[in-house]
């Protein structure tokens, strides 16, 4: 007989209530850990995709939309910007590099991006097989694109107009796949990359049946790109460039870091929300513990009296109740950790499948340590009041009442 054996026996005696409370705490902790993992992964993923891009210059419109479309390749672009205006900007001495991107078509739902080889090297993209494109209508495909469509160098692919799957195929302008990229864990994996000239070439001749397209071509006879991804040469640029672009050109400048932070906040992926959620769930579990232990102490009033008569001090009785609380807490926390990691992996898979975002939710989040610590601390706190009640049981009164 020892403290743990006694506590386990007591917990087993009220097995159902103990079990439910352990499950509630476990679910709370699992949810928090999943949220921590996923929000961190999403933020890290955004960060990787930002990859040090300081400024995105595109057509006027919503800055979030500009970032989403040109950096994360999730939304539709605001519009296009004239090439000569973009070229003028590139020459600005405050700019270290400016990578042009031209959007417009997709291949089986994967975006075809007209850009320079700098774009690939910006994301540390390495060729798995084949070579980089060197001529118009040659294409390099990202690892996921290649995997899903079984592409290899030498294949021909046909783009469809628009950024989502459509029937409007550019059958007259097939691309030659010349290379496949190794996985990078960035947006690069989901793109088809080709020189900007290819995009121009495909769209040079507007569909005569589409009056909108014809009218657009007539109004914008000059060459266009969708956006320019800018890296600053000096921090000074952050102060000068965005304002200058917004004021003096037909283009708009958006800071990806700022807009992404705003987006994360809007989506509620922020740490504040996670923290609040965490507190609510753990408090619910703590209340459950409290109620279980409280009613257990009430139910076991006579057991407590008996133990006191056998020579147990008040402190020993208190220790028994506290140990039960700690055991419930540890069990719930352990189960929560396990479930949390299972949930995280499942959620990452689901996001990967439905949101076109590869996440890696394996491993420990540094905050997990604090979650465990807080959960245990709260279990102990929830056990203290029932423990005090057990501590204060009036043996003589209960004995004279009972017999």
């Amino acid at each position, binding site marked *: *007989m*020892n403290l743990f*054996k*006694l506590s386990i*026996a*007591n917990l*087993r*005696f009220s097995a159902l209530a103990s079990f439910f409370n352990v499950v509630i705490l476990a679910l709370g902790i699992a949810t928090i850990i999943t949220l921590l993992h996923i929000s961190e992964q999403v933020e890290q993923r955004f960060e990787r995709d930002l990859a040090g891009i300081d400024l995105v210059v595109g057509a006027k419109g919503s800055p979030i939309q500009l970032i989403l479309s040109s950096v994360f390749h999730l939304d539709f672009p605001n519009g296009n910007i004239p090439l000569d205006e973009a070229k003028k900007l590139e020459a600005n001495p405050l700019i270290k590099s400016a990578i042009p991107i031209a959007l417009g078509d997709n291949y089986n739902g994967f975006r075809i991006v007209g850009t320079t080889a700098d774009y690939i090297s910006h994301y540390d993209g390495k060729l798995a097989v084949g070579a980089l494109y060197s001529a118009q209508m040659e294409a390099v495909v990202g690892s996921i694109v290649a995997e899903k469509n079984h592409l290899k160098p030498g294949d021909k692919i046909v783009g469809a107009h628009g950024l989502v799957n459509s029937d409007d195929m550019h059958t007259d302008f097939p691309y030659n796949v010349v290379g496949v990229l190794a996985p990078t864990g960035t947006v690069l994996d989901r793109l088809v990359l080709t020189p900007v000239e290819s995009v121009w070439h495909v769209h040079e001749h507007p569909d005569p049946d589409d009056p909108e397209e014809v009218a657009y071509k007539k109004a914008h006879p000059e060459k266009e790109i969708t956006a320019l991804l800018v890296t600053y040469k000096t921090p000074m640029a952050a102060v000068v460039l965005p304002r200058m672009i917004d004021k003096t050109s037909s283009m708009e400048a958006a800071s990806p870091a700022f807009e992404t932070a705003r987006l994360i906040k809007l989506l509620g992926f922020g740490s504040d929300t996670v923290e609040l959620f965490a507190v609510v769930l753990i408090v619910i579990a703590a209340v459950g513990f409290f109620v279980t232990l409280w009613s257990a102490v009430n139910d*076991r009033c*006579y*057991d407590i*009296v*008996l*133990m*006191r*008569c*056998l*020579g*147990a*001090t*008040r*402190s*020993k009785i208190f220790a028994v109740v506290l140990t039960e609380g700690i055991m419930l807490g540890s069990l719930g926390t352990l189960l929560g950790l396990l479930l949390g990691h299972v949930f995280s992996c499942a959620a990452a898979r689901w996001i990967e499948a439905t949101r076109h975002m590869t996440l890696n939710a394996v491993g420990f989040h540094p905050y997990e340590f604090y979650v465990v610590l807080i959960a245990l601390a709260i279990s102990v706190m929830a056990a203290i009041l029932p423990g005090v009640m057990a501590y204060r049981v009036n*043996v*003589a*009164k209960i*004995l*004279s009442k*009972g*017999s």
Partner: protein
Amino acid sequence: MLNVSEMTLGYDGTQVLRFGGLELAEGGQCLITGASGSGKTTLLYAIAGLIPVMQGKITVGGVDITEFSESERDHFRGKYIGMIFQTLHLVKSLSVLDNLLLASYVAGLSQERKRALDLLKKLGLHNKKDDTPDCLSQGQAQRVAIARAVLHRPALILADEPTSSLDDAACETVIDLIKEVAEETNATLVISTHDSRLKSHFTKVIKLGQAA
């Protein structure tokens, strides 16, 4: 061995009992009787150190327990006193054997598993050692409780109405058993009861009057 001076007892500052005094030698046996409300149970709990004494002294084996703090009294009770009750026998969540060992554990004594098993065997409960108290009859549970009370060979055994809920035959068995185990370890025995059937078993009987 047990020496109770003239004393007053009570709960929360209200006097319940004025007691004339009691002296018992080692191995001595005594019955405290009286109508319900006469304070015999209160007296027993005071000797057990479960309630503080308002005035007077209680010495067990030469030690005045009224000078002890509450936790010192708990330790003392665990070590030197065995208690038996009318209905309060066993902890429901533990097996019969663990109920015996629990007594040693909470008293901070070494857990003599072999002696516990021997005692159970002697009381014919050896085959019940792994059962929960729910599986026992009232009489069996009481026998386990008696075994537990003498497990660590206490100098003093206190029994509170040990036979009141039993029929005549069981009453005989239980009182004989209690006396037997007490005599085996030469323990002093004090029983508080209103059960007049016990009177014939004891030479020393103290009758308490109505509560003051």
